[in-house]
């Protein structure tokens, strides 16, 4: 696998590294690395695989170095390309950077696998890379230039994105949890809920967003008083409504599945011990169902991060604003400014809730 990772890195070292354009929209020229750097990058591309032949435990060192070299060269070469250029000139990462970083990423991942008891060595590159990012070494990279121009507005949109996801998730949990408890006790209702949830899951999310907006806007057309209260087909309110309904499904489905998945024997045993209905619910059913249920909340949260990006289309704001702006004006830096943070946000939310799930599972497992 290390040799497999060396291939994109070798190609990346040779391919153009920086795209220099007179402004953010104009076509530009591709710049390669100077020969000395190409040689160094190529050596570091082969080094992890060569080290792997001798000492598997040491692969992390050249792999991390290669990854850091890629990030460092991105900053250095973009800065060098912009020397003597006008203010509007943009230096963006070309295919070489992406391929090199991809290969180096695979190599560090493989290095982490080679040391099962010390997985964290696969993340050693993160602190220096963050230092390069925050220390301003990457400041001339076009995406960050764009980000600096947007500055506070970008932070605002990120906040709006988080607010949208947070409120929709909160609302859907508030509605979904009691509903799931109510439905789980009734076999017929539970089957119906699961059937509807599965059917709705086959629908395209954009179509669902559209279908949910149609009744809202019809309502606003029919009752002008509601329109003055802010309910219409455009803006935050319809986006929030549609997102809440969208997130309701995984919360509801996993809740019903989790509560009904509690073995009847356990509940019978609790009844035999003399527990009342509410004791059985709080002390037996909820702790046993909670980890699976949280899985549904996690799915909902991850889905919402993506749906919120699309919700920018109906004027709800959020990171999707930059993606659509970038798509309309064919400015790839703006697209990256919206899409990369949205992707990272989804991964972060997923990781955080997964950790919470694991922790709760262990805790409740011990308590039970």
């Amino acid at each position, binding site marked *: *696998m290390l040799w497999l990772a060396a291939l994109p890195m070798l190609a990346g070292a040779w391919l153009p590294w920086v795209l220099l354009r007179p402004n953010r929209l104009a076509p530009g020229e591709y710049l390669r690395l100077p020969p000395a750097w190409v040689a160094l990058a190529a050596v570091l591309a082969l080094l992890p695989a060569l080290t792997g032949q001798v000492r598997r435990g040491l692969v992390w060192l050249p792999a991390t170095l290669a990854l850091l070299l890629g990030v460092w060269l991105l900053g250095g070469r973009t800065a060098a390309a912009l020397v003597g250029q006008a203010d509007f000139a943009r230096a963006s990462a070309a*295919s070489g950077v*992406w391929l090199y970083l991809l290969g180096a990423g*695979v190599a560090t*991942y*493989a290095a982490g*696998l*080679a040391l099962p008891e010390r997985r964290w060595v696969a993340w050693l590159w993160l602190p220096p890379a963050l230092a390069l990012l925050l220390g301003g070494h990457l400041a001339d990279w076009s995406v960050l230039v764009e980000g600096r121009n947007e500055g506070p507005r970008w932070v605002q949109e990120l906040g709006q994105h988080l607010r949208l996801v947070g409120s929709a998730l909160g609302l859907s949990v508030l509605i979904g949890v009691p509903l799931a408890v109510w439905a789980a006790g009734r076999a017929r209702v539970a089957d119906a809920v699961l059937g509807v949830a599965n*059917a709705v899951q*086959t*629908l*395209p*999310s*954009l*179509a*669902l967003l*559209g*279908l949910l*907006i*149609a009744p809202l*806007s*019809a309502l606003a*057309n029919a009752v002008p008083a509601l329109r003055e209260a802010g309910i219409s*087909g*455009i803006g935050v309110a319809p986006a929030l409504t549609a997102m809440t309904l969208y997130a309701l499904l995984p919360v509801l489905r996993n809740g019903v599945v989790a509560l009904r998945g509690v073995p009847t024997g356990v509940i019978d045993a609790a009844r035999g011990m003399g527990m009342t209905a509410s004791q059985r619910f709080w002390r037996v059913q909820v702790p046993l169902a909670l980890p699976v249920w949280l899985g549904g909340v996690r799915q909902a949260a*991850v889905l919402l*991060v*993506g*749906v919120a*990006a*699309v919700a920018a*289309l*109906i004027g709800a704001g959020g990171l*999707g604003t930059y*993606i*659509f702006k*970038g*798509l309309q004006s*064919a400015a*790839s830096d703006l*697209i*990256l400014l*919206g*899409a*990369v943070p*949205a*992707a990272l946000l*989804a*991964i972060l939310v*997923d990781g955080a809730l997964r950790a919470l799930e694991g922790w709760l599972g262990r805790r409740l497992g011990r308590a039970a």
Partner: protein
Amino acid sequence: MTATLPARKRRARLPWGALLWPALLLLCLLPGVLPALINPLNLGEVGAFDPPLWRLTLTHLGLVALSGVVVLALGLPLAVAVTRPGWDAPRQLAETLVGLGQTVPTFAILALAVPALGFGWAPTLLGLIVYGLVPVVSNAVLGLSGVDRGVLDAARGMGMTAWQRLWRVELPLARPVILAGLRTSVVYNVGTATVGAALGAGGLGEPIINGLSQQNTALVLCGALLSALLALTLDAWLGLIERRAGQMS
């Protein structure tokens, strides 16, 4: 009471969805039907479509079908390769990547493909392939590694070569699970392809996106209805194939 229960179960198994959804889809695609249905709702003006709706539907279907073929051609060999003994590290990498693909928002993947491939159907197709690979690879790995070791040992004992074991034992046994993955992948991709309209891919997302940005809810409703019907149709059809494969093996 107990006598009616199996009868109801058998009726539920009738593939009514496989007939109902495509029939509704075709009905909506007849010229004039959809405007006649939607205009009385007073949500906005829906006139003649340019390009016509059936062409948008065909574009959509073409994108999904093409990506489905590529996904199978790439995903199946990949899954077979990483489930061979001695390929533990690549399998873990594949599983990590599949998990990542499930987490990263579709729209972000599509948007990230634009700087590399420009506008039009190309970034959408790439996004569909990347996103479609996720369920196919994860299900194929699951199905292939779920094949009973005893069965494989028996096949080896009968003198089958590694290729014969793969073709005659492992793949047929894993087929229902693989087909279920393909079904999930195709149905999700109908949804992903609607988002692709934002990148200029055409398809049924186009009326949705145009309607949302022009505040014409009727237009949104057209695209949403048709893409939902398309998703339900493909889900029902692939469900039929999946069930037949399950009965055969």
